[in-house]
């Protein structure tokens, strides 16, 4: 056991423990905060494994953006602050499938790698990763940018109720004389 092994073991224990709390806590907001702990421990794992850029991107995007979005959603759906009792379904099929998946994969990986050691390759700094991305993986990178744009447009379309309404409704509201200003502005906007 070297120092890196001990660090990986400790950070992995923290990540799995926080993950257990994420899927089992009764408090919605606390689930989001335990998710921060879990993702932060995973970022530490990445650092120990030599993936510097991935670790910092993990902190920036997951801990900085995704968890904040999730907490916003918790607030916007008017979640109760205290413990809530109706968060869970009956648990035994979920425990069966989830435990089966986790333990089965663990057995598979332990059987494949036993207690072998590997020497660490060079750290994945921003320079080396950028060289790889813009030399070997340029096409997937561009496709991902298109995907991000379409996800953005999709989120905007989903959250606006006036897009995708059937056309006759415009005639209905145009016949309504009580709000001529709104109709005019509406017609211009479309």
């Amino acid at each position: 056991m070297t120092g890196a092994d001990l660090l990986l073991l400790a950070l992995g224990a923290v990540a799995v423990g926080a993950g257990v709390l994420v899927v089992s806590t009764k408090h919605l907001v606390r689930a989001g905060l335990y998710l921060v702990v879990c993702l932060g421990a995973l970022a530490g794992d990445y650092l120990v494994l030599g993936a510097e850029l991935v670790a910092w991107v993990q902190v920036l995007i997951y801990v900085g953006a995704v968890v904040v979005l999730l907490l916003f959603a918790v607030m916007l759906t008017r979640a109760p602050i205290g413990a809530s009792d109706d968060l869970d379904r009956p648990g035994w099929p979920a425990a069966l499938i989830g435990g089966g998946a986790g333990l089965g994969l663990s057995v598979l990986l332990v059987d494949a790698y036993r207690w072998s050691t590997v020497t660490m390759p060079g750290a994945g700094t921003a320079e080396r990763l950028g060289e790889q991305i813009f030399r070997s993986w340029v096409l997937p990178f561009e496709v991902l940018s298109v995907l991000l744009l379409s996800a953005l447009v999709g989120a905007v379309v989903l959250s606006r109720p006036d897009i995708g309404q059937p056309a006759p409704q415009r005639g209905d509201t145009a016949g309504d004389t009580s709000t001529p200003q709104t109709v005019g502005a509406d017609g211009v906007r479309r």
Partner: protein
Amino acid sequence: MRPVVPYVTAALLFGLGVYGVLRRRNAVLVLMAVELMLNAVNLILVTADTTARAVLPHSGQVFALFVIVLAAAEIGVGLAIVLQLYRLRSTVAVDDVALTEPPVSAQPVGRDVEAGR
């Protein structure tokens, strides 16, 4: 470095994510469990970058970056769907969602929202 430690961590995290997706009723908590699964896959990719000697160096870490971008896109669209569901039905419990669309009930809600703007 013994690669079995992060591999087992990732496997356990994936199992926890599957458990959370199947167990939770609140849609936001389901999305959190999906994040756990995506992170388990990322840990597998980063660890495989140290154990497998590929032709292109650091491919696993590049793939982990791509998965992080995919997760960001997924969470944006997913939360838009959840918030729209909350606006239409005033609930985010995933087993309260009707699988067959009622033909008329959604229409007045949309028109009310339109008139209120």
